[in-house]
């Protein structure tokens, strides 16, 4: 029975429930305690020991119902009311089919599935192969042989028997196919989220399909939580000061040296301040979206973010991001009729010029400036002077380029002209890049 539990857990993982090894062990022990006897009880036990949120419980219960469904071999093949033809029984499979032994057939099929490792099924194309293997395990060869020998005899009785067997065979094949299909959906449905997790981190953000967005957000949420956790200890230490003896003495001189009010040494953590300047022309938009999701998730770590977006000109959008979630904010900016953003050709000169004229005082010695863009200026004058002015005031200026380094400087890319005025230029097009970058930023 261990094997059943193992398979069930694989199926549950495929369905999107996160199950660790220790939870598997717990479930095994729990099931040992209560046994497999009671279906509802087993479901409860598994739900309690494996699923750890309300949403996961729902997933797990659905998975359970599908996994332990015994709806196969229901409603036997249509006999149209006639007396079933008498068929000489040559194998157990034929006997079971003729006697409509549903339990026997089910048992034979699951046993065959176990021997053939049906739970290893991963791809759509494997279905026919597994169905074939299952059938031969169950003894379909004998059935065929009997059919053949019946075909050789030319009597009405034999013909009727052959027809009966033929129908039984169709019924069998259909059920086995359904069973394999069901198993395939359980174990490999949705292309296997298990593998996806690791892969999505490395996939280029610009290539990620829309339907994975929810999943990416989940990954980002977990990354953000980890980063937050990492530095919570640091925050705590800063809160708990030690006695500052010199200051205490100094301040209590007025009380004739009696130590009335102690003062404490406090460590001050400077949380970084960010100014984010994003190119939101279409080529870069995806990356912008995920970077901002990340940054705004880290609000405990970051003192203040001011966000500017540009395409042909540059505007500040901090208030939009402050007032609504990142997703919504981005769509508002893009479609925004009330926002004075011109979505024409990307113009770095004008945009940086705008920033220099209007917002330069947003950048101080404590500010880290993040610029996200591909520096493709449509062959206009890049005018690095504007960037130089920003660079001169900032603590750091980091340029994130969603293009791979091989393309930097090729065509209308002006990144080489801007590079003297950047502290760092980084390639940034996967979640991994973003995470590495940001964990470095909040630690330094």
């Amino acid at each position, binding site marked *: 029975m261990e094997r059943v539990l193992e398979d069930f857990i694989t199926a549950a993982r495929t369905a999107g429930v996160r199950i660790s090894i*220790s939870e598997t062990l717990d479930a095994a022990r*729990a099931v040992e*305690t209560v046994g497999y006897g009671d279906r509802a009880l087993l479901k*409860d*036990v598994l739900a*309690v020991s494996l699923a*750890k949120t309300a949403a996961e419980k729902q997933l797990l219960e659905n998975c359970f119902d599908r996994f332990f469904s015994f709806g196969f071999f229901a409603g036997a093949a249509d006999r149209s009311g006639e007396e079933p033809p008498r068929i000489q029984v040559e194998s157990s499979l034929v006997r079971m089919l003729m006697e409509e032994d549903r339990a026997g057939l089910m048992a034979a099929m699951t046993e065959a599935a176990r021997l053939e490792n049906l739970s290893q099924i991963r791809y759509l194309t494997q279905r026919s192969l597994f169905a074939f293997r299952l059938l031969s395990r169950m003894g379909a060869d004998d059935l065929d042989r009997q059919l053949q020998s019946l075909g050789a005899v030319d009597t009405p009785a034999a013909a009727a028997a052959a027809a009966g067997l033929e129908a039984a065979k169709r019924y069998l094949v259909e059920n086995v196919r359904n069973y394999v299909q069901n198993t395939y959906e359980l174990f490999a449905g949705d292309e296997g989220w298990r593998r996806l997790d690791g892969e999505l981190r490395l996939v280029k953000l610009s290539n990620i399909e829309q339907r994975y967005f929810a999943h990416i957000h989940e990954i980002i949420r977990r990354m953000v939580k980890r980063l937050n956790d990492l530095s919570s200890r640091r925050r705590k230490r800063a809160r708990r000061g030690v006695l500052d003896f010199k200051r205490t003495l100094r301040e209590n001189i007025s009380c004739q040296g009696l130590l009335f009010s102690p003062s404490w040494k406090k460590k001050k953590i400077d949380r970084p301040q960010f100014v984010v300047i994003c190119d939101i022309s279409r080529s870069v938009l995806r990356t912008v979206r995920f970077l901002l999701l990340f940054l705004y998730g880290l609000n405990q770590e970051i003192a203040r973010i001011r966000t500017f977006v540009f395409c042909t000109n540059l505007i500040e959008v901090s208030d939009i991001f402050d007032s609504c979630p990142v997703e919504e904010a981005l769509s508002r900016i893009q479609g925004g009729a009330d926002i004075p953003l011109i979505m024409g050709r990307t113009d770095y000169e004008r945009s940086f010029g705008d920033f220099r004229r209007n917002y330069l005082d947003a950048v101080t010695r404590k500010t880290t400036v993040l610029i996200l863009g591909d520096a493709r200026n449509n062959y206009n004058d890049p005018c690095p002077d504007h960037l130089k002015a920003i660079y001169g005031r900032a603590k750091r200026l980091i340029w994130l380029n969603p293009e791979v380094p091989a393309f930097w400087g090729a065509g209308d890319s002006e990144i080489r002209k801007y590079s003297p005025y950047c502290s760092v230029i980084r390639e940034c097009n996967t979640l991994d890049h973003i995470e590495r970058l940001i964990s470095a930023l909040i630690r330094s």
Partner: protein
Amino acid sequence: MKDKYQERLASIPVLEEGFRSVAYIADRRIATTVYLAHHLEKPILVEGPAGVGKTELAKATADYLELPLIRLQCYEGLDEAKALYEWKYGKQLLYTQLLKDKLDDIISRKNGFSSAMEKLHQYDDIFFSWPFLEPRPLLKALQEKDGAVLLIDEVDKSDDEFEAFLLEILSDFQVSVPEIGTIRAVTKPLVFLTSNNTRELSEALKRRCLHLFISFPEAALEREIVRRRVPGISERLTRQIVKFIQDVRELELKKVPSISETIDWARVLTILHAEVLEPVLVRDTLNTFIKFEDDIVVVAEKLHQLTATAIRQ
């Protein structure tokens, strides 16, 4: 004692019946979880909306098993000193003062600084020993000889660090006190953690627990709860109250009425000697189960309709 305890946890139906006997109406899943928690020696993490009886479950378990209930209420800034143990500083100071003469004695008999020190070293651990240790809830729960029910309430309100610190206790039922050593549980307590999901708990914590999600009960179960908790209430009124509350839960409210509020309302109505729900009566007692001004407005608008459907019960 031990036998009785085992006997009461012998099977799931026994446990279900047991909860009933202490006026806690549990569905089978709850009983199953408690049963498993005992047999696997695992803590239970109880989640669910406010007021569905998460804390009550721990109390009922303690009641039924006749074990002491030790409760630790979590809040932001809770730390080891308040949760686990603390040294009785006052007592330590007092004793050093009282024993001053004794100490002088010991030291003065020795001549020479180093030998006095040596002599002192033989005694110094006295002040860091059991008599000076103030056990806080967690340590107390481990020390109970016959076992205990430990309730760590609203664990989501505590800091991340505290959560990490809980891990040792939850998985091994032991704590380390540097001056004394590792203290193991005499009898492993039955642990309940409750959470309202104000923040997501860490994976590590969840992994160590059985997870029980209690949602609002079905009408039949809620009726039974009301009958148990409010003796003397008429069957008809019970039906109407429960129907009304269940309908109110469907509305868009800031805070939907919980079971405890259903019970409160039922009590109020019995005190007022009500036999059936009437719109006027409901309007006057609305504030027993709706706690926000905005919500009251929403419910009051639909009051007649809600009462009408409830009365049909």
